[in-house]
């Protein structure tokens, strides 16, 4: 409930500059796709990063100045929770695509199910997953093996699950005012996150070089890279956020009761973790 003390941010140049940076980045990327120069997108990325940095710096400054009360905090919490919900929906669309092709489209192309007449066009195609033969393999990079659940993916599962544990240990440290435990466990979490990303990149290199599994390997390669790639991007973003939080923790920004910045990042980290479990189950195992 409003109590008259609600902090309303003063005018700020950073949102509009952030918008400019984002637009420049994307427009530059569009130009790049059609043979344009790299300059606009790099410029856009720099503007975007600087503006976001200034924006967050202002928020942290206001917070440290004690301008935020419990109600402002609640706004931030609700905002973050709904933002994560929007991310869930994004992954929902990607998972939905995977379920659709696996359960409907590929069986139809193989002659099974209600729309199996499609098989007339692809008489040699057999419904199987992962797809090692496409309906028209000659147009694609045909992989010699699918990505299995053992090896790197299993290790990565362990890495991410333990990072969920370490971020919680950091949280406990924060609540106990044990700053060393907080910083230490945060650092471990970051290292685990970095390990995950490095292993994932290694796995991609392996898939491209040895398995011949590429973005151009039909719907299996498409769904595999889009789902794991988007997740990997989110992990990378999470690592950056954790690093910022580590810096703030070292500066003593958090108290056992007031540490929304930390909580927001840890929610995000747990969200990334849960998405990975879904990936491991449906992309690697199923």
């Amino acid at each position, binding site marked *: 409930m409003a109590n008259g003390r609600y902090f309303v941010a003063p005018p700020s140049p950073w949102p509009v500059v952030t918008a400019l940076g984002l637009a420049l980045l994307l427009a530059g990327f569009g130009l790049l796709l059609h043979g344009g120069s790299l300059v606009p997108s790099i410029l856009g990325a720099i503007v975007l990063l600087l503006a976001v940095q200034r924006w967050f710096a202002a928020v942290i400054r206001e917070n440290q100045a004690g301008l935020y009360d419990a109600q402002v905090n609640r706004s931030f919490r609700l905002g973050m929770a709904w933002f994560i919900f929007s991310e869930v929906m994004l992954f929902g669309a990607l998972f939905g*695509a995977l379920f659709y092709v696996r359960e409907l489209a590929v069986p139809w192309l193989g002659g099974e199910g209600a729309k199996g007449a499609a098989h007339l066009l692809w008489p040699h195609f057999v419904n199987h997953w992962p797809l090692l033969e496409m309906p028209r393999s000659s147009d694609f990079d045909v992989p010699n093996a699918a990505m299995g659940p053992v090896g790197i993916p299993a290790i990565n599962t362990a890495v991410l699950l333990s990072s969920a544990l370490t971020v919680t240990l950091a949280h406990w440290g924060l609540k106990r005012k044990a700053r060393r435990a907080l910083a230490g466990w945060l650092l471990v979490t970051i290292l685990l996150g970095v390990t995950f990303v490095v292993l994932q990149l290694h796995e991609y290199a392996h898939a491209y070089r040895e398995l011949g599994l590429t973005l151009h390997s039909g719907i299996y390669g498409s769904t595999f890279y889009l789902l794991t790639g988007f997740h990997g991007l989110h992990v990378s973003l999470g690592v950056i956020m954790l690093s910022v939080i580590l810096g703030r923790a070292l500066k003593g920004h958090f108290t056992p009761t007031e540490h929304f910045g930390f909580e927001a990042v840890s929610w995000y980290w747990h969200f990334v973790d849960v998405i990975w479990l879904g990936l491991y189950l449906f992309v690697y195992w199923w």
Partner: protein
Amino acid sequence: MSEATIIPIKGRNKAVRGWRRWLFTTDHKEIGTLYLLFSLSMFFAGGILAMLIRAELFQPGLQLMQPLFYNSLVTMHGLTMIFLAIMPALVGLANWQIPLMIGAPDMALPRVNNWSFWLLPFAALLLWSGFLMPQGAPNAGWTFYAPLSTTYGPPSIDFMIFAIHIMGISSVMGAINIIVTILNLRAPGMKLIDMPLFVWTWLITAFLLVLAMPVLAGVATMALFDRHFGTSFFAAAGGGDPLLFQHIFWFFGHPEVYIMILPAFGVISEIIPTFSRKPLFGRTSMIYAVSAIAFMSVIVWAHHMFAVGLPVTAQLFFMYTTMLIAVPTGIKVFNWTATLWRGSLTFEAPMLWALSFIFLFTVGGLSGLMLADVPADYQYHDTYFVVAHIHYVLVTGSLFGIIAAVYYWLPKWTGHRYNERLAQWHFWLSAISVNLTFFPMHFAGLAGMPRRIPDYALQFADFNAISSIGGIAFGLSQLLFLWLIIQTLRGGEPAGARPWEGAHGLEWTLPSPLPHHTFTTPPSAETVHAEGPHAHG
């Protein structure tokens, strides 16, 4: 005013002046104004595209443009009107009104609010830049079905995809802000169930936005990957399916339809009681009906795809769920009608627009029920019957709701009464021409005219000529609206705090024009109660 309340004021008093004021603003009223002015300009931009379409269709044969340019017009008209005119206008109304109606000092996240707005002009630039590109603006329809938009799309499609991403971020951030404001910043004593209907409908709309927009971003990204990075989401040769695009697109697209209409429902639910001088009939059932519509909107998407050859069980499922939506929609119309019943009606401009909304949205709703009937839809689908339907729900629905809202709240925003005589002219010219434009399209569709064609067989000529005359007249009538707004901004009879004597709600307890900061102290519980849902009784 307690000492602590100085905090927001202090920050605000250093408000920047000049052009930077509008770029940097964190004030919900200024951002609301930006949204509304931006959407007004986009409404005219999209309108010019519509005029060009109607000019080409005035008679058979190609007179003005090549077919591909016609396809670009159709595509850009749809994208502009939906993402840059209707949606920003609704968010603009939310920005102005929600804090005023719930007694909040501002939106919960003011800088995010500024960001949400300023993303839009950049998205518009990206989207419209296509007209300057080698193969022209996007031309695969606003639904950009694959593979027409992927393998066969012009380069501008990439910029359209990025524009969609930016507009999506803008919408999601705007929606989160609205949800948080409503859940966290209500005046003491205002229970959720007692919130004004406009706030309720926006809460549910915002939920749908957070749910649907990321899905659009997902499908647009897949299209981008199919275009440039060798994936085959929508290509059967690699095991994908062009229908996958449509499923994901419409999973976004159908909630999107309700995103555009629910806030208009809210506006109408504010206006009808005011000018009937009677409380809204069945207030609680209205809220349940809106919630039910929102819930069902995510399980009806494939009714846009009845002609694609879905398995029969899927066709049956989506037919039943779609028909079911008619029940809560009917409840809303019945409730409005019952609100009018034995009221004490007057017919100022907001009321006229609201009444025509009920009449004409009902026409669009009923043709929607016809479209739900799958075997009949095999005939209606992708014809002008559908074009008529969507324009009855989006023009005489959403747009009329927005115009009604502007007339209703303009005195509050500017402090001046608008010119009622001119507003009545604006209404009657628009109401007649809009029907002249869209009603004949029902017949053209039933007679067999497909949509999105630049030229047509002779038996459709009469319908199209009438539609074109109506369309141009409707477009020109809107210049009156523009003039009226300018006139009201510049001056006029003082409006007073409560220009409509039948109006209730916290916004009317404030002076007109509104001071720069409102509800620096929250309204008292007594005020909240007095202006609440039981005010009329």
